[in-house]
Structures are given as structure tokens and as C-alpha cells.
């Protein structure tokens, strides 16, 4: 059952993308539904299997590694898979409105969307370094295609910058892969750990791969491309970019770091990564504070929030793992909600310049509400998913007596509060300014509802963390201290 389900989880959207290319027009809506909606149901089989066996190996074509490529599903990848499926399906609700399948835009959008989805699923499952490269390229290309789908100059420019950097990043990664292969003669992520000792070549290879992935995941100071790309893309695209696309690279770094290089002494490097994360938190928040466009603020917020994920490296304990994974989840939900809400506001008002959004809460209360709820989770205020993550981070830091990280995590929320409340203040609190009615464009409620569902899930994540966290702690990497 599991093999079949996993195969469909990857290939059904891909086939749907093909069908969407083959039969544009009236059937597109149904094709998309068929490609997306069965996925949550299909996820059940792998979920049960993981709960039962913890780790599932699937040798593709019947050839186990090192000969062939394996898919490997463990709790962490299961979480990523669920996250991807859930968020994509929810954002698709929104995209179904903003990129109607029967429109020309929709026909350009949906195939890429489905491919992006399928490729992220494939990425999460893959256990092969080179296969990861291919999937990562697929993710990148599809993502950039989606960024540029409306061909606005800013989006084009952002997409171009992203593309160049992503290509460079892939090259670094590939160089690392080549070196690893040269050293070990295998490409399986979980086999290389047994094969190599941390000599300087393997370390360099690992470093190259990780730097490449850091570029792709826009970790400070390699973040330069992100705000423009995320801030100028169409709403659903920004949402998935921030919620998932940058995350999968970080996920890959985790894999390399904790599984591939298990048993290496990486303390210094880990602290460096943590420092990068800290810088990202501070810089991203400060930059968000001075932006004058809503989507740019949200985009810079992503830069900042990605920093938390980097704290896993210095902390590296069960708690930290739970924290980072949960942050992945709650930030994904919250940020998707915020981007969708921002996109609704943007398309309703015609601009997302902050000064001109005063009073938009009257016009689009649901969106503003979703924005605020998402913001609460981003702030890490209770009771939200973000709070759970923050709490776990703090606990992890406390247990390791890592006071610096502790203070950072605790204070990071304040920085986030600064820019989020600025946004809310401007939007809600200009009693005498009224929006120009002429510019107002109606958007279907479904678009707002999608944002709201995501935002509410981000909050609700604060209450239902127990199963997720116990799942995560069942799939810890070999090198992590309990």
C-alpha cells in the first residue's frame, strides 16, 4: 500500500500537470482537482506505515542503493510531506480563484504549480544526493516560472536574480556531490555517513553542498534574492515559496548535516550556522521594519524566520529538533496565510504600499484578520504554533545552557512584533482616511477563506502539537543527543 501511495503522491500531480498541458481549457479544473485532492487521503497509508515502522525504504526500480536510488520516508520527511500536501491544497483554494483554471493565466499557472508540488514531494522522499539535485532544480525552475507568470517587470527581475543565484547554488551543490561520489563511490545520503571519515575533502564537499543550499534557502547573508522574489510574485506563489520552497533546502541541509555527516565534530560550524541564523533574525526583522510595501514586509519576515531554523545546528538536541520542525510547520502555515491575505489586499486595493492601506480592514476584514492571526503565530505569542516552536527552542537552549540562543529566541519575537504591529497599526488605525472606493476590486470570498483557514491552522497548531512532536522525536537523526 505504502509504495503505491507514495508513487501516486509524487506522480499523480506530475501526471496531472501533463494532462493540464495536454488538455487545457474546460477540463483543467477537474484535472487539477484530480491531481491534488486525493493526496491527503493517499497520505494516510504512508502515515500509518511510518507510525508503525518508523522508517520506510523504497528501492526504486528494485535496485537498492548504492546501485539504484532509494526513497526513504521517516518521520521528518513525513512531516514535510504532510506540510507540503496540506499547504499546497489550501493555497490551491486561493489559486483556484486568483488563477481561474478556465482563464489564460490559469492555463499557464497550473501545470507549473502541479510540477512544483510533485517535485517537492519527490525531493522530500529522495535519499540520493544527485536525485536531490535534480529535484531541487525542478523545484527552482518551476518556482521561478511561477514567480514570473504575470510578467511584471519587478517579478521578472526578481525571478532572474533568483535564477542566477539558484543556478550557482546548484553548481556548488553539484560539485560537492561529485566530490562525495569520488570519495565514497556512492550517492546515497544515508550510506555516505558510514563511508567517510571527516577528512578535509569530505568536509569541503559537505561545506560546498551546504553553502549551495544556504543560497537556495536564502539564509542571511545569502538572502538577497528572496525579498524581491517573494514580494513580487503572485500571491499563491509567494505563499508556497515562503512556506515550502525555501524550507526544502533547509530540510536538505538538515539531512546532510545530521544524517550525512552524523558523527562529525561540527561544533564550530554549528555555532557559525547559528550565528547566521541570529543575524538573519535581527537583520530580517529590522529590514522588514523599514519596508513600505506589505508583501515586502512579509517577505523580509521570512528572511528573519528562516533564521530560527538555523538554530537547530548549534542546539542539536531532541527538543531543538522538535522545535525546528514545529517552526517549519507553524511558520509555513502562518506565512502562507499572510501572503495570501496580503495578495488579496493587494489585488483589492491595487497597491500594497502601506500608507495607502489605511482602513483596509473595513473593506477586507477577513484578510486583515488572517494577516493578524498569522502574525500572532510569527510573533510566537501564545497560543499558536509559533509559540510552541519558540517554547521548545527556549527549552532546548536552556537545557544546553546556551544563554545566547535563549535570549535571541526570546527577544526575536519582539523584533517581529515591531514590524507586525506597525502593519496592523497602519491598516486599522486611520479613522478618517477612507479607501478610494473606485480602486476597490471585489475578490471572491474563497480567496480570503483560504487565507483564513491557513491562519487558523497556524493558531490551532498551538493546541495539537503533541502528536506531531512525538512523531518527530521518533525520527531523530543518529547524532542528536536526546
Amino acid at each position, binding site marked *: 500500500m505504502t509504495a503505491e501511495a507514495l508513487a501516486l503522491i509524487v506522480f499523480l500531480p506530475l501526471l496531472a500537470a501533463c494532462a493540464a498541458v495536454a488538455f487545457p481549457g474546460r477540463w483543467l479544473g477537474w484535472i487539477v482537482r484530480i491531481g491534488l485532492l486525493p493526496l491527503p487521503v493517499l497520505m494516510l497509508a504512508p502515515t500509518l506505515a511510518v507510525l508503525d515502522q518508523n522508517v520506510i525504504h523504497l528501492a526504486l526500480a528494485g535496485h537498492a542503493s548504492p546501485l539504484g536510488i532509494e526513497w526513504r520516508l521517516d518521520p521528518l520527511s513525513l512531516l514535510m510531506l504532510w506540510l507540503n500536501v496540506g499547504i499546497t491544497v489550501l493555497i490551491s483554494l486561493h489559486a483556484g480563484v486568483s488563477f481561474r483554471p478556465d482563464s489564460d493565466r490559469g492555463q499557464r499557472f497550473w501545470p507549473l504549480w502541479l510540477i512544483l508540488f510533485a517535485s517537492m514531494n519527490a525531493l522530500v522522499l529522495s535519499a540520493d544526493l544527485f536525485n536531490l539535485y535534480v529535484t531541487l532544480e525542478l523545484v527552482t525552475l518551476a518556482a521561478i516560472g511561477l514567480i514570473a507568470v504575470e510578467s511584471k517587470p519587478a*517579478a521578472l527581475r526578481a525571478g532572474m536574480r533568483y535564477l*542566477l543565484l539558484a543556478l550557482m547554488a546548484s553548481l556548488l551543490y553539484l560539485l560537492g556531490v561529485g566530490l562525495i561520489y569520488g570519495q565514497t563511490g556512492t550517492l546515497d545520503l544515508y550510506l555516505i555517513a558510514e563511508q567517510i571519515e571527516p577528512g578535509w575533502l569530505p568536509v569541503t564537499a559537505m561545506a560546498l553542498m551546504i553553502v549551495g543550499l544556504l543560497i537556495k534557502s536564502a539564509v542571511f547573508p545569502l538572502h538577497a534574492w528572496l525579498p524581491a522574489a517573494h514580494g513580487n510574485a503572485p500571491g499563491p506563489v509567494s505563499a508556497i515559496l515562503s512556506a515550502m520552497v525555501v524550507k526544502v533546502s533547509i530540510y536538505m541541509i538538515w539531512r546532510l548535516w545530521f544524517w550525512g555527516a552524523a558523527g562529525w565534530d561540527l561544533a564550530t560550524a554549528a555555532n557559525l550556522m547559528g550565528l547566521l541564523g541570529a543575524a538573519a533574525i535581527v537583520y530580517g526583522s529590522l529590514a522588514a521594519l523599514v519596508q513600505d510595501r506589505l508583501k515586502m514586509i512579509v517577505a523580509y519576515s521570512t528572511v528573519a524566520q528562516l533564521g530560527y531554523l538555523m538554530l537547530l545546528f548549534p542546539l542539536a538536541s531532541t527538543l531543538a529538533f522538535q522545535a525546528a520542525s514545529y517552526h517549519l510547520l507553524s511558520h509555513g502555515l502562518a506565512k502562507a496565510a499572510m501572503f495570501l491575505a496580503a495578495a488579496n489586499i493587494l489585488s483589492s486595493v491595487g497597491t500594497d504600499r502601506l500608507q495607502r492601506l489605511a482602513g483596509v480592514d473595513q473593506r477586507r476584514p477577513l484578510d486583515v484578520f488572517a494577516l493578524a492571526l498569522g502574525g500572532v503565530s510569527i510573533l510566537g505569542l501564545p497560543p499558536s504554533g509559533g509559540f510552541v516552536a519558540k517554547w521548545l527552542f527556549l527549552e532546548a537552549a536552556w537545557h544546553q545552557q546556551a544563554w545566547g540562543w535563549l535570549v535571541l529566541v526570546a527577544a526575536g519575537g519582539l523584533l517581529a512584533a515591531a514590524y507586525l504591529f506597525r502593519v496592523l497599526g497602519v491598516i486599522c488605525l486611520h479613522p478618517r482616511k477612507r479607501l478610494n472606493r473606485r480602486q476597490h476590486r471585489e475578490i471572491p470570498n474563497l480567496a480570503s477563506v483560504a487565507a483564513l483557514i491557513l491562519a487558523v491552522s497556524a493558531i490551532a497548531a498551538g493546541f495539537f502539537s503533541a502528536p506531531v512532536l512525538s512523531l518527530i522525536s521518533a525520527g531523530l537523526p543518529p547524532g542528536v543527543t536526546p
Partner: protein
Amino acid sequence: MDSLGLYVLAAAVLFGVGVYGLIVSEHLMRKLFAINIMGNAIFILLVAASGPVEGAPDPVPQALVLTGIVIAVSATAFALALMVRLYQETGQATLSSRDEGDDG
């Protein structure tokens, strides 16, 4: 030093040239050249640095590089299309951004 070493050296220099070009070039097409050059350098390394298997060259890196070439071609073609489109929209084929803060 044998011929493979020579090619590895060439790959190193090519990589340097690619990096140099990437930094120095303003025009996007040149940046693409640079990236492709870097890519080729890495492909050479990939093939050259993996030892032979039973006398014959190891087929796996070659297969990987073949895949890599396809991906590079795809990305380049798309990047060119993107560049042309950007040029049509903005009259610039560079990334020297003038108006980054467009209304998204």
C-alpha cells in the same frame, strides 16, 4: 601529471573564469555564459575525479553529467527567455535595478 590532471586544472581555471565573469558581467547573457562555464568546469571535475572502475571509466558520473547537461540546457533556455522578456518589459538586460519596489 597525466591528462586527467590537466583537465582538472583546466576545470579549476574555468571555474575561476566563470566566477570572475559572473561578478564582472553586467549583461545577463554573459552571466549565463559564466554560469554555464562554471557548470562545465564542475562537470569535468565530476567525470575526471571519479576513478575508473575495472579499467573502464565509471559510468555513473557520466550519466550524472549527462543529466546535468540536460538540466543546464533547460535552465539556460529558460533564462534566455526570461532575459528577453525582461528586456521587452524594462529595456534592460541587466539586473542593475532601478525600481525594485514596484507594486508587486
